[in-house]
């Protein structure tokens, strides 16, 4: 989540003449990259003719990073990273036991981190490695530089996951032309190829996510009517169910056997999409077992998941107000729709056979490529999408008041007026949430921020108009204005699960020098520098604004500086970083006071530019 007015002015996609744009389907299990040029659409293949690129990353001890099929055989290879995009430490607790990653437990707040040897990486960095490979692949095929892309995301992705995807692209050196919802991209590719008119459903069951969208296609306009889904439901779950079945039958596996067990489960599942019976071998607790798995058993195992997708689909159709009979066809997308049970259940729901002339693996990437071409070369088609989740704010008693309802067409803007409830009140807290439930703790917290520097007036006189805008990527931006005095205010919205822009910059620098240098030593050095900078700026702030500090706060900060200084003398980067975050935590209430002070003292009769300048001066 970002502020609207901090986009770089004049940023335009046109100056990149010569460089090309592509469409990327960044999937949980597999990713694809496609190119569209003058109506010729093509999925890029590797030397062996494979278009599917395994979404797997392995970090070797010598610093080398392997991606795709090369990474598959590596011990500790990271799979299904998409499941963690935009997830916070808190979200992961519930599913921590089931994850095939080593979560970095030292990181207690914000975005989840994964331990990879000595390093601690975010899902954004790991996804960026996949995107970099796809970029390389497309550049080799095009014999041209690729610097812009349309990237698809599950329609049901929330703001944090969308932001994380955009950040990953940035790290990989790609400008995101647009984030397009996967089912919408599929509909675009299918609809254009078949000159379809009318209402269509897109049922998209991938490796880790499920989406259902209803679209109306008419003379080049693709209008999404309603969408719904589950970002944690997909083929991965089927594999886990099969593995559980083996465990029940043959006992508990060693931890070293788990990944082979999952791979075998997947092989069995894939085989059973076209056959009735499969025979295989698995090793559990050191013992090899021959087994048979038939289609009935598999169906029993996955039925609960498929039933859930059918229920979600039913609710989405009902929400849209579209009559079942009005739906002209259903497009199946995602590898998991190859299961006959899925086809059967979808047919039962909609009363018609799903369309068969679609490649469920490639159609999303092709749609993305078509949109990339449309956005750079111009086009007559128009995509009108909706926001999948309702957006609201916290009100009294922890209840969420909806401001923008789900299935609202985007871009969309909503202004809400707030007033002060106490005399002389100069700050106001706003908590933004995403989700369909009534209570705050049942929804996804996007951001909590404070509007500060409200001119001191009697209660109820200051009127603050806050505008929430969802852009065409489905991303939220917030701006605020005090209407009585006309003071515009920039609100620093800290994304609860996002990466601050500075961090992305650092990551960019890191990744560029990555190949040549001993990365660990460099990172350690960088952490030490960062830690010293943090200490110096805290010290200087304390010196300047000592009167804003309570004795207790001062003691805590000084003690933490001591702890951090000791760590800097050592060589453990993680603990240096960790102590810096603790220092920041102690420092932040003080920093807030300083910001408030700056606003208050400078608000009288100055414009916002001046305030910023003052602030910058104070902070430098």
């Amino acid at each position, binding site marked *: 989540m970002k502020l609207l007015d901090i986009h770089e002015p004049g940023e*335009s996609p046109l100056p990149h003449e010569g460089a090309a744009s592509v469409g990327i389907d960044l999937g949980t299990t597999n990713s694809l990259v496609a190119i569209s040029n003058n109506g010729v659409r093509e999925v890029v293949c590797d030397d062996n003719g494979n278009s599917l690129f395994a979404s797997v990353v392995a970090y070797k001890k010598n610093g080398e990073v392997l991606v795709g099929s090369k990474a598959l055989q590596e011990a500790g290879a990271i799979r299904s990273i998409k499941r963690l995009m935009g997830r916070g430490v808190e979200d992961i607790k519930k599913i921590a036991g089931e994850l095939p990653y080593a979560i970095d437990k030292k990181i207690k707040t914000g975005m989840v981190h994964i331990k990879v040897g000595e390093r601690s990486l975010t899902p954004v960095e790991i996804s960026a490695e996949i995107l970099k490979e796809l970029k390389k692949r497309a550049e080799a095929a095009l014999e041209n530089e690729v610097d812009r892309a349309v990237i698809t995301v599950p329609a049901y992705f929330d703001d944090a996951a969308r932001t994380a995807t955009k950040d990953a692209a940035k790290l990989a050196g790609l400008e995101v032309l647009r984030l397009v919802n996967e089912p919408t991209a599929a509909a675009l590719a299918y609809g254009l190829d078949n000159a379809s008119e009318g209402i269509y459903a897109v049922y998209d069951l991938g490796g880790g996510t499920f989406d259902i969208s209803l679209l109306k296609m008419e003379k080049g306009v693709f209008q999404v009517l309603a969408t719904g889904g589950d970002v944690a439901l997909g083929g991965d779950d089927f594999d886990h169910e099969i593995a559980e079945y083996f465990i029940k039958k043959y006992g508990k596996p060693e931890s070293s056997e788990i990944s082979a067990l999952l791979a075998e489960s997947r092989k069995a599942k894939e085989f059973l999409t076209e056959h009735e019976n499969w025979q295989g071998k698995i090793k559990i607790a050191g013992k090899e077992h021959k087994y048979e798995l038939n289609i009935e058993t598999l169906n029993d195992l996955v039925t609960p998941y498929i039933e859930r997708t059918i229920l979600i689909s039913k609710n989405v159709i009902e929400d849209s107000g579209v009559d079942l009979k009005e739906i002209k066809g259903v497009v199946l997308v995602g590898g998991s729709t190859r299961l006959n049970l899925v086809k059967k259940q979808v047919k039962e729901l909609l009363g018609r056979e799903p369309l068969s002339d679609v490649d469920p693996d490639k159609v999303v990437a092709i749609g993305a490529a078509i949109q990339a071409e449309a956005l750079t070369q111009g086009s007559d088609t128009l995509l009108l999408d909706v926001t999948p989740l309702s957006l609201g704010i916290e009100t009294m008693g922890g209840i969420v008041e909806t401001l923008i309802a789900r299935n609202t067409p985007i*871009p969309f*803007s909503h202004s809400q007026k707030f007033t002060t409830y106490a005399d002389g009140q100069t700050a106001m807290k706003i908590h933004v949430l995403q989700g369909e439930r009534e209570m705050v703790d049942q929804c996804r917290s996007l951001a909590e921020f404070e509007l500060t520097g409200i001119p001191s007036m009697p209660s109820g006189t200051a009127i603050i108009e806050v505008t929430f805008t969802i852009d065409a990527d489905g991303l939220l931006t917030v701006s605020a204005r005090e209407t009585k005095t006309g003071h515009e205010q920039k609100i620093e919205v800290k994304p609860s699960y996002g990466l601050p822009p500075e961090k992305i910059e650092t990551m960019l620098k890191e990744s560029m020098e990555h190949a040549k240098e001993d990365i660990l030593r460099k990172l350690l050095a960088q952490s030490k520098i960062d830690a010293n900078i943090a200490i110096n700026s805290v010290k200087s702030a304390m010196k300047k604004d000592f009167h804003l500090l309570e004795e207790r706060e001062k003691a805590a900060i000084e003690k933490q500086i001591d702890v951090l200084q000791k760590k800097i003398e050592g060589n453990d980067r993680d603990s240096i970083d960790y102590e810096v975050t603790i220092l920041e935590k102690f420092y932040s209430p003080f920093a807030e006071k300083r910001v408030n002070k700056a606003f208050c003292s400078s608000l009288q009769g100055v414009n916002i530019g001046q305030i910023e300048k003052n602030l910058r001066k104070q902070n430098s």
Partner: protein
Amino acid sequence: MIIENQENYFDLFGIASSFIIDEKMLEKKYFELQKQYHPDRLMGKDYEERITALYKAAIINDAYKILKDPLNRSEYILFLNGKLINAEAGGKNPSQELLMEALDSREELAEAETLEKIKNLEGKTIEEKKQCIEELSNSFSEGNLEKAEDLTLRLKYLEKFLTEIKTKKQNYETS
């Protein structure tokens, strides 16, 4: 839902300011406007132009949402005539009759304990909603804004009640 100081949404779409609208025409105008202002159409333009268009596209979406839906459209026409449908904001209070009706229906929903009964109640309410929209349309044609206000309140209640029925229905279907 209503953004102040905004141009009249009927004018924006170039259609007559009336409760009775041609939905096909409304959609056609909507697509035309979005083809002009949707951010996808302005990718190569400079920053200022793109930001202006972003807000314009957002307003067009808001206008479409309001004009398409009978309840929103009715509230909007009343708003243009200086009448607010919101008791807290100084609007008209629901009639005693409507309050009694709401009470009775809620009871009926609470007592409906099979999926079939819930679905029956849903069907009945959808019928009532259709009728209410028709009466509303007549009141606007007759220029009877007083009556339109009452009917709008009733329509608002019926829609809310339908959502409650739907929630209960979905709970029954899940379990």
